[in-house]
Structures are given as C-alpha cells and as structure tokens.
C-alpha cells in the first residue's frame, strides 16, 4: 500500500500552540513522524543581550506563560551566583512556594487538555476548576495570575504578609479537597486507563539515549529531579518523594504528574510552616554586574530547565536556555511509531509540550525526505 502523508497542525484543534507534525501512514499504522517547530520563534536569547539587568529578568519571564517562575528563578540564581548576592531565607521559601504552585497549575492545565484530547470533557472541567485555586494563590503572592515576575536579584518583588499567608492556607485546603476528587476521577476511570495504557511507550533505555527530562523520564523509570539532585532555594529542607513509574507509556507519565501534585501540595504546606515570620524588604533593582559565567538548572514543571549566562557589566554578554520540551520532543517519533493516527494528540500531549519555550531556541526544517528519521 502506498504511504500517505497526513499534516497535523500548525493550527489544529488538539494542539494548544501552533506546531506542524507530518505523519507518514502505511494503512492505519504510523511509520514515521516529522516535526517542524518555529511558529512561535522570538529569538529571546539574542534580544536579552540588549537589555539592562532589571529589564532582562522581566523579559525572561516572558519566554513561557506557564514556566514563568522557572525561567526567572534560573536566571536570577545565575546572576546571584556571579555577584555573590545573598538572598533572605524568607525569599527562598516564597520562591519555593511560587515554583510549586507553578508546577500544580501546569500539571492541572495539562491534565485538563489530556482529558479533552481523549474525549473526557468532565476531567477537563474538573482539572481547570481546581487550577483556579493555584492561579488565585499565585496572584496573591505576585499580583498576577500569569507571567508572575516575582523573582528579583537578591530577593522578591514584594514580601508576603500574614494576611496573604492566611489566604494561601485557606485556598490550599480548598484546592486539596477539589484535587482529591479530580485525582480519583482520573484513576477510577476505565476509559482513561484503556486509552492511555500502552500508548506512546518509551523504554528506559530509549529514554536514557534521548536524554529526556522531567516527568517524561520519570514515567520511563529514570529517577531524576533537579530538586533532589542539585537542591536550590529551600528544597534542601523539604521532605518529599520523587514519583517514578516503570510503565513508560502515556498512563505512567500521567500518574507521575498526578503524584507530583500531591508532593507539591506537601512542599507548600511545609514551606508555609517553616517560613520565617520577619518582614523582608523588596529587592532593589541592580544595574551593574561583575563579569563571569555560570550554569544553572531548575526543575520546571516539564523537567530540567537549563540556563547558561555570561555576564557583562550592564547587560548579559551571552545567554543560552535549554527548556525541557526541547529535550523531550525528540522522543516523540519513537513513542508514536507503530501507533495509529488517533494516538497522535494523546502522545504529543503526554509529554506536556511547551512550544513557546522550545521555539525560542530552534526551528526544524521540514524539507528533509519524508522517510528519514528526525532524531536518530
């Protein structure tokens, strides 16, 4: 039978962001899949070199609407390392709370989209309803629901007082109740089990070879988490588990994320109880830096986020970011091979791709021969 080429995207109802996937089918079976990124390309890595330091960290928060905290935190920590700036203890705890809230809201957003792609709209409604509480808490900390630029060099944009902590506690307990329902809805549903189990399998060996990160790696049985491997902010003082699943399929990746939300809730509770009560001043803008170079990794919701910074006096000299989706997307063709066309939206959404992050770095040419592999 002749091979058929089916375009998937760039504007497709199952994709939240514009990307192009070219699927080559032999009958019903996928024999190859090629992808073409670059529809969100903004060249932020180069643009940031023309920005002064106080502006640079704000621009970095704009790389991605969901990983806003991960990018500003990585960049801020890199700057603090170069200039040996000490951060108040309370700021570390608030940053940890912000990062975990970001993880919760990212995972719930992903869970909703997965439900929608799998034809389970109740899960979509429930997950996004639960996510509202995480957004409310982020607004409470930073003043914004999305693009919350609360990290500043040497501290925070603003302090959080007793009233805000009280609000955090009440919202968190409310969210916990709602999330317990959502979690049970997913786990008890046979439909999701049938649809996701065995779909998009990535073995441990393949995952290691591709160098995948975050929940995609943990779903394939690789125990890796930057928060445990290279602890930063207040993670050293926290007690939490790193959920690992051996299945390697879409279901395993989903379970890893669901378990992570519970760990994140526990980390936020620990941070609130361990946080120093004393007031801290908002960090003052820093205009001048020492010259130096440093690498920094943080655990973004989708996995390891890497920043490499070479600083000049008033502006960065060289900057490179490797967001997690860029490391994960190369494994998608392997996950999909042998599956059917209906698996495509589910497997793509199972790695929780963020194309805004990825496109800041790379464009893949689609002028290559259709039967060739993208990554191996």
């Amino acid at each position, binding site marked *: 039978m002749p091979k058929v080429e089916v375009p998937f995207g760039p504007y497709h109802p199952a994709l939240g962001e514009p990307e192009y996937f070219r699927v080559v089918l032999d009958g019903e079976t996928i024999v190859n899949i090629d992808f*073409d990124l*670059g529809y969100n390309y903004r060249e932020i890595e180069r643009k940031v070199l023309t920005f002064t330091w106080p502006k640079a960290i704000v621009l970095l928060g704009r790389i991605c609407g969901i990983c806003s905290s991960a990018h500003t935190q990585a960049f801020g920590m890199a700057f603090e390392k170069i200039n040996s700036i000490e951060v108040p203890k309370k700021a570390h705890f608030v940053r940890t709370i912000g990062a975990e809230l970001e993880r919760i809201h990212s995972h719930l957003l992903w869970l909703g989209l997965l439900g929608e792609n799998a034809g389970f709209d109740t899960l979509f409604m429930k997950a996004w309803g639960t996510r509202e509480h995480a957004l409310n808490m982020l607004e409470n900390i930073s003043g914004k629901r999305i693009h919350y630029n609360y990290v500043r060099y040497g501290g925070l944009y603003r302090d959080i007082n007793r009233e805000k902590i009280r609000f955090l506690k009440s919202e968190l307990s409310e969210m916990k109740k709602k999330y317990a329902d959502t979690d049970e809805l997913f786990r008890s549903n046979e439909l999701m089990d049938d649809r996701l189990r065995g779909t998009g399998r990535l073995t441990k060996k393949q995952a290691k*070879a*591709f*160098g995948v990160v975050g929940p995609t790696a943990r779903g394939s049985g690789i125990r890796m988490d930057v928060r445990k*491997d*290279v602890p930063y902010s207040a993670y050293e003082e926290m007690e939490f588990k790193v959920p690992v699943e051996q299945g390697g399929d879409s279901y395993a990746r989903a379970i890893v994320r669901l378990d992570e939300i519970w760990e994140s809730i526990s980390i936020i509770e620990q941070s609130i109880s361990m946080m120093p009560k004393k007031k801290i001043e908002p960090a003052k803008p820093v205009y001048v830096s020492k010259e130096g*170079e440093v*690498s*920094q*990794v943080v655990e973004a919701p989708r996995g*390891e986020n*890497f920043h*490499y910074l*070479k600083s000049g006096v008033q502006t960065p*000299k*060289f900057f*490179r970011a*490797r967001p997690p989706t*860029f*490391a994960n997307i*190369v494994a998608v063709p392997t996950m999909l091979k042998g599956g059917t066309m209906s698996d495509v939206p589910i497997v793509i959404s199972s790695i929780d791709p963020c194309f805004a992050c990825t496109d800041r*770095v*790379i*464009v*893949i*040419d*689609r*002028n*290559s021969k259709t039967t*060739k592999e993208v*990554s*191996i």
Partner: protein
Amino acid sequence: MRGIKKLLEGGARLITISCDGKKVYYHFFFDGKIITHPKSKRNLKSLCDVFPDAELYERELMEKYGVKFANHPKPEKLFT
C-alpha cells in the same frame, strides 16, 4: 573530543551545546554537577554516535554560527 566521549560513556548526560560565536560549549550533567567544556570552533566531531540527542543541538549551531561537526549523520539546514 576524547575527553568528552569518555565523560559521556561514564554516565554523564548531555544537557545542551551552545556557542557564543567564538567558542563551542558542551554542557554536561555528571555526578551532581554541571560541567561546561569550552572547545575551539575548529575540528569538532559529532557526538551523535554516543548521544542521539546531540543531533538537534549540533544542527542548530551549524546553522546559526557556521560550526562544522565532522561525521554528522544529517548535516542539513535547520532554520527555515
């Protein structure tokens, strides 16, 4: 390149490869640390045989900075 290959075979993970126009930097995660290897732009060999993920990073640098990687399995244009 021999040092880098040894590092990779010893269980290091390649995070990414970057270039500032003058030098090429290999970023690894090894033994709980991030190791950065600066290399001259000349006489570089592809790491794809040891680490398949290097393909995308190398193609990006070929296109953006004109860095050449010998024995690259797919030295095609990357940016449209």
